[in-house]
Each structure stands twice: as structure tokens, then as C-alpha cells.
């Protein structure tokens, strides 16, 4: 199935993109995608526990199962205001 990934702030700087599409296997969970990114970027390895995730613009748990067409956002703790 096909999902969209969005990353923000420092995570975007590290990943070098802000948005991309991925083809992934059915029933994949959020944490499996996060693991994929952490493995591919050494700079993320120490920060995995601080990362936040949202599916379709709603905060989600790491064990959430993704569906075809979902947008998964991965980002650091927020700092607005």
C-alpha cells in the first residue's frame, strides 16, 4: 500500500526532505516506519523516544496500524507560542 510521510523542524533538516511517498506492506505499524527512519539516519538514533507521530493530522500511538493512503507525520516536541 501507499502512504505519505511528512517530517518537520529538526527532523526535516536531518532527513533532507519534508514530504515523501512510500510503498509499504499491509498492516505496517507506525513504529516500524519510525524505526526505518531512525536506522537510515544516525542523527536520529538518540532521539527516537522524543519523536511524536500523527496519522491524518491526529496524534497517534506508535503501535497504530497504518492504512492505504494514510499520511504519517513524524516530528520533535512542539515549541510554538
Amino acid at each position, binding site marked *: 500500500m501507499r502512504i505519505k510521510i511528512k517530517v*518537520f523542524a529538526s527532523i526535516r533538516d536531518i532527513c533532507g526532505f519534508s514530504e515523501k511517498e512510500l510503498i509499504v506492506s499491509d498492516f505496517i505499524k507506525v513504529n516500524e516506519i519510525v524505526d526505518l527512519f531512525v536506522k537510515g539516519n544516525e542523527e536520529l538514533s538518540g532521539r527516537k523516544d522524543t519523536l511524536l507521530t*500523527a496519522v491524518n*493530522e*491526529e496524534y497517534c500511538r506508535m503501535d497504530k496500524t497504518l492504512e492505504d493512503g494514510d499520511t504519517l507525520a513524524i*516530528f520533535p*516536541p*512542539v515549541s*510554538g*507560542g
Partner: protein
Amino acid sequence: MKLVLIQKDAIDINEVLKTDASNSDGSDLIFIGKVRDNSRGKSVTHIDYDIYNEMAVKELNRIADEASSNHELNRIIIIHRYGRVTLGETSILILVSSPHRDSSYQSSRYIIDEIKKRVPIWKKEFYTDGSEWISDRS
């Protein structure tokens, strides 16, 4: 009345105060967050705000609805800037109008506290010597 805006332009407080003002408001409480010239010992020159726009709008509306359901509010206006915001400029404005000042203070405080916890906005501070994403600090 509820208004949530995410905008690049500077915020005009007179415009905000006039927006759907009603003679039954009683009181307005306005929180204004501004870019400060120093942050933990460093000299700040400006801030760049990154924002997950669609999700931020959803969360801001949700926070406004939560505040409304717990307090008697005639107006809620929340405006957050994105992009570059320079020294002394307003990065966020929260206006609540209520016949009761208890409601104004509690709801305004609730809104700013929740925004800082959950709305997907990130600030990158620029100093005279470098820059830093603030979200990475904690």
C-alpha cells in the same frame, strides 16, 4: 464566535479587537507572545516558525472548543504567525471575551498552555552566533 488563523503577516491588534466585537462582551483578555531579545543567555535576532498547517489548524480549533465548553466565552480569536518573526514582534495573539473575568483568565491560560503542549509548531531561534531548533532542547 471563534476564529483561528495562521498567518505570515504581522498581527494588527486593532483589527483583532474590532473583529466581531459585541456590546455584551464585558471584558477582553489578550495574551501577546513576542520574540524576546535573549534566550537562555544568547542574543536572539529573530525566530523562524515551522508549522504543520493542516494539523495545527485542527488542534487550535479543538483547543478553542474545549475552552468554550468549559467557560462562558463570547469570542475566541487565536492567531499564530509562521515564517520569520523579528525582535519584539508578536508571534501569537490570543483574545477571549467574556462577561466574567474568571472565565477570561482561566480560558486564556488554558489556551496558551495547551498550544505549547500540543499544536505542531516549532521555533528555530537565530542568535548572533548560530541557530537552534528549540524543540530539541528539552
